[in-house]
């Protein structure tokens, strides 16, 4: 009798172990997920895009206010942003998993309310691949699917690299992420893409992925090409000395409009598309000048 009970127990444990997964988030915390989540809330655009790239867009029940891709999530309820997530809206959706960045406010609050939270923050190419794998694992998607998606992204980046014309290579680039100004250095995913293109970055990896820089640094470095998001359009040329920079005088500037900037600055599944936009920019400015 006792033996039968024990074997039954072991069988039970095996059953749950088969469906339960334990994944590690970016803060090295182990998160146990009992069964594949069916109601997911994402509070970071790149994570929203990652879920959709894995083909599970339909499982999203809420996103942050900055998520805007793909089209099918436009109608989903909005749960605030990274610094002001709306705890009540999130709980009201009864999510079984919330995906968010490590710096999001109120994480402890969500955990206290009994909601499984996965903190992921991709910043490099390797991060994008790892986040794809982690999200796939958490959502019960086979790892081969995650690898397939990653191979697609990687091939896309490679295609963008090869589309670069010879005269567009070996230029020195300054990439501005936001007008504070914060730039993208060699160690960010944007810098890594540029590196694969054989293009030099005026911000060395030692400065950290997205360093805050002195505008004078850019003037002194005299980049051949300037790339920036739409938010920098107004203020960039007002900075002292910038109008006299070679790149500005020769109009070797690419300011990405908002919908393109979203693609370029998000470390997610659309990274290849971002690489293509950067390659287009480099081809255009080098073709025009020489």
């Amino acid at each position: 009798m006792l033996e039968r009970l024990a074997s039954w127990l072991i069988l039970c444990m095996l059953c749950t172990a088969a469906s339960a997964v334990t994944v590690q988030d970016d803060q090295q915390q182990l998160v146990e997920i009992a069964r594949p989540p069916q109601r997911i809330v994402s509070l970071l655009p790149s994570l929203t895009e990652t879920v959709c790239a894995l083909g599970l867009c339909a499982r999203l029940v809420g996103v942050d206010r900055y998520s805007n891709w793909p089209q099918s999530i436009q109608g989903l309820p909005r749960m605030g942003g990274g610094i002001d997530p709306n705890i009540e809206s999130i709980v009201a959706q009864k999510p079984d998993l919330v995906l968010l960045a490590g710096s999001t406010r109120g994480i402890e609050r969500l955990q206290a309310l009994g909601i499984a939270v996965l903190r992921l923050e991709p910043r490099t190419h390797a991060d994008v691949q790892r986040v794809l794998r982690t999200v796939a694992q958490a959502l019960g998607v086979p790892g081969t699917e995650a690898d397939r998606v990653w191979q697609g992204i990687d091939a896309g980046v490679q295609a963008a690299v090869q589309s670069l014309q010879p005269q567009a290579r070996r230029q020195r680039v300054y990439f501005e992420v936001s007008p504070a100004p914060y730039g993208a250095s060699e160690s960010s995913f944007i810098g890594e893409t540029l590196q694969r293109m054989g293009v030099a970055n005026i911000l060395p990896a030692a400065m950290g992925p997205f360093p805050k820089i002195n505008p004078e640094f850019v003037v002194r470095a005299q980049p051949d090409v300037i790339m920036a998001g739409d938010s920098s359009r107004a203020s960039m040329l007002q900075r002292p000395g910038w109008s006299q920079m070679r790149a500005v005088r020769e109009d070797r500037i690419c300011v990405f409009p908002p919908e393109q900037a979203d693609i370029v600055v998000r470390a997610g599944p659309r990274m290849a598309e971002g690489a293509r936009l950067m390659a287009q920019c480099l081809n255009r400015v080098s073709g025009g000048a020489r």
Partner: protein
Amino acid sequence: MSSRLVMLWALVLLCIGGAGVLLGTAVGSQGWQVWWGATQDPVMQQILWDIRLPRSLGAWLGGALLGLAGAVAQGLFRNPLADPYLLGSASGASLGVSLYLSLFGGSVLASAWLPRLGMTGAAFVGAVLAVVLTLMLARGVQQTLRLLLAGVVVGVVLGALASLVALFEPQVLQAMQGFMLGSTAFVGWTSCGLMALALLLSLALAWALARVLDALTLGEATAQSLGMPLRLARLLLVAALSMATAAAVAQMGLIAFVGLAAPHAVRSLLRCTHAGVLLLSALMGGALLLLADVLARALLAPQDLPVGVLTAVLGGVYLLWRMKSTSGVRA
């Protein structure tokens, strides 16, 4: 006579607070939402009991802490412009938060004990250490002017350091912005418990020393001649002030004007001794912040306006109006 009036007003403000908590449970992410019919739904119950109720109660408690701290600060410094953040606690809390975020924001040290302290713990420790630093720079509490100047210096320097730490990483900067816009959205039952404890302790301490504050209104020399143990009393009052402020700041972030406006509002209602002012300021602060919070939730629903933004606007308008009406009387 005066004490009966105080009790009457205390009762009125307490009722406003109670009504506010009830109101607070009826407004949330969907705007106004009457809950009497919906209590069968387990999610709705969780929203009511674990989100709206602690949040509303927390707003009241936090407001009460700030109101009390404001009344203590204004009495201690004999200055109607004194506010709870005068001794540098706000900047200290900011520095604590920014250091915490930049050290542990994306870190691998999650199993160490320090990160367990959390953002609220870091803010509390930062706020208390800032006041201790101010006391050290002012060499004690004897000279009001020294204390004020040291508080300003500590506030500016620690604030600058906090910005410096945050500037290096855009993510920390973003999270810091969230902290600067104080919000009650993340208050749970634990936070409520901590704030209630801090309120009880600091109110008891300040209440016990209310006679010292009364004596101080006659000038320091007079207070001394009345045989008050001024030095000890001041130290204890600073302790009550910093404990109340640190507890509120740690749980909610920076919330402007409640601490400044609550004692003014009380004094415009009635004239009484400091025992009354302290009690009523706490109740007034609680009612003010709670009503502001309810408004902040309802105004842009389903978006959630950080209540700190709203109190800054409303408090500014109120003080301006007070200034105009009192200067009109004098002219």
